[in-house]
């Protein structure tokens, strides 16, 4: 994943850069995460970012995967009155938390963070306008600035043509470009080395900058991406429920960060609900 040299902390860095642009500046934050490895790591990294910025932590808890209803969690968070809510969740939890916050409401001005699953077509289609205002990580969205990536539009057009028959995500924005890029990196390395020699291939990958459908890729000494490229996007202007096509158009998931790709400015969560 394009998290950066220190993945746990770098993954949420762009999210914090974005929410700190809210006016007035947020002062407090609540954290909630699925009790599983990725989500916990993500939350710990986000906690480190919050401490670095000087945000007061009002709530910091984990929940078990498979929790069917999240309204008690949202109510408990609201009782601590945070300015921001950072969620690190898996698809089931992400849907449950979005539904719960839609029902219970919140005064928090920034909501989202590391919610896995909101990028999936079936979930986007099902939640529709409930996603408005959520500020979340992403890897690729159909915004004009993302065309900086060479060949990605053509790749996605080819992918979307065959996706329904292969029973995979019909839009493929979230993972298809990155999966393709991984194989481009591996393919280029194998071709350059000329044989299947794991040590030589690894050495080549460490030393080389690759050109892929997600742009230039370079790895650092620890094997992570030399520079992070996780996006922070905010869902805006979703009008209809059960309409997947609206998510293929620009202006729905506006990019807030990194600045090179930005297509919008962050708005308070409640202003978009």
């Amino acid at each position, binding site marked *: 994943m394009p998290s950066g040299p220190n993945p746990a902390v770098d993954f949420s860095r762009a999210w914090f850069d974005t929410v700190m642009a809210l006016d007035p500046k947020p002062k407090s934050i609540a954290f*909630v995460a699925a*009790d599983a490895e990725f989500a916990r790591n993500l939350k710990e990294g986000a906690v480190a970012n919050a401490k670095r910025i000087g945000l007061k932590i009002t709530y910091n*808890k*984990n*929940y*078990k*995967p*498979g*929790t*069917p*209803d999240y*309204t*008690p*969690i949202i*109510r*408990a968070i609201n*009782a*601590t009155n945070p300015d921001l809510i950072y969620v690190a969740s898996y*698809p*089931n939890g992400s*849907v*449950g938390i979005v*539904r719960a916050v*839609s*029902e*219970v409401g919140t005064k928090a001005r920034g909501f989202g963070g590391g919610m896995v*699953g909101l990028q*999936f*077509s*079936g*979930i986007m*289609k*099902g*939640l529709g306008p409930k996603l408005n205002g959520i500020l979340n990580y992403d890897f690729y969205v159909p915004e004009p600035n993302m065309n900086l990536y060479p060949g990605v539009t053509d790749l996605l057009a080819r992918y979307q043509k065959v996706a329904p028959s*292969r*029973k*995979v*995500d019909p839009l493929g924005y979230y993972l298809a470009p990155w999966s393709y890029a991984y194989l481009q990196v591996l393919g280029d390395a194998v071709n350059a080395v000329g044989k299947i020699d794991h040590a030589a291939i690894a050495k080549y990958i460490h030393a080389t900058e690759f050109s892929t459908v997600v742009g230039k890729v370079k790895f650092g000494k620890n094997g992570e991406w030399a520079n992070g490229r996780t996006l922070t996007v905010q869902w805006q202007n979703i009008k209809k*429920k*059960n309409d997947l096509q609206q998510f293929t158009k620009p202006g729905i998931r506006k990019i807030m960060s990194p600045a090179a790709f930005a297509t919008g400015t962050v708005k308070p969560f409640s202003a978009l609900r």
Partner: protein
Amino acid sequence: MFSFELLINAIVIGILLGGFYAALSIGLSISFGLLDIVNIAHPAFIILGAFICFVFNSHYGIDPILMGIIFSPVFFIFGLLIYRIYYERFEKTGAEALRGLAFFFGLMFIIEVILIMFFGVDFQMVQAGYTDFKATFGVVDIPFRMFVPFVFAMLMAIGLQWFSSRTFFGRAMQAVAQDSLALRLMGIDPAKIKTIAFGISIATCSIAGALLVIVIPIEPSVGRLYIGQVFAIVVLGGLGSQSGTLIAAMLLGLVESLITTFFGPSWSPAVAFGALILVLAFKPTGILGRVGDTRG
């Protein structure tokens, strides 16, 4: 951070959550509780039911609960067939303990793989008119996406309780669990009664699947998340007791909701399963289990 508003909402959500857990567990209280069949594939059947509801909902807009009810006879027949295979291959030969368990494990994986082949591994959701609404009474919110499954779970539990206590087949089901030899001496074939009982337990999966897909998004293996919970509820309620299963589900829902609200969600499984251990320590037969039943 204690407040009346938090408390009352935690209790209401706990009860609704309990209804949801009851819907998932009630069929297992028949197969595992009454018939001693460790149907580890029970949640997989629920997911199968959920996907059927999803297909009809996404293509034709049909309400998932209506589809769950319509398909329950199909699931009933499916259950009859599965039990006959289980009976002929394992139970009849006394090999049900380990091989039978492996059979249901296999069945679980087959269902999951078939669902993956047809639907892929993406999460799917249904749309129903009531899922986005909530009723507000003062400070209390009742989300319909939880309330509607709760109502149908109650109807299913009450219906099954009535069936098992007031009808011939229901009483025969209880008799199989208590003394199948006595039943045989009275001229009734226990295998026939067990076949029907298992069919009913699988039929409940169709409706439970409909209720599940209203509450959470589904993917083929999501049922695994609930295996421990449904077995714990059946044991806590008392093997074979539908009323006990309902009470245990309510208890679990309430404990989870209250602990989540006031102490944090990570404590809720520990407290819920701690309560299970405590109850079983003082009443090994479960809440409404029969005295002398040592299976718990």
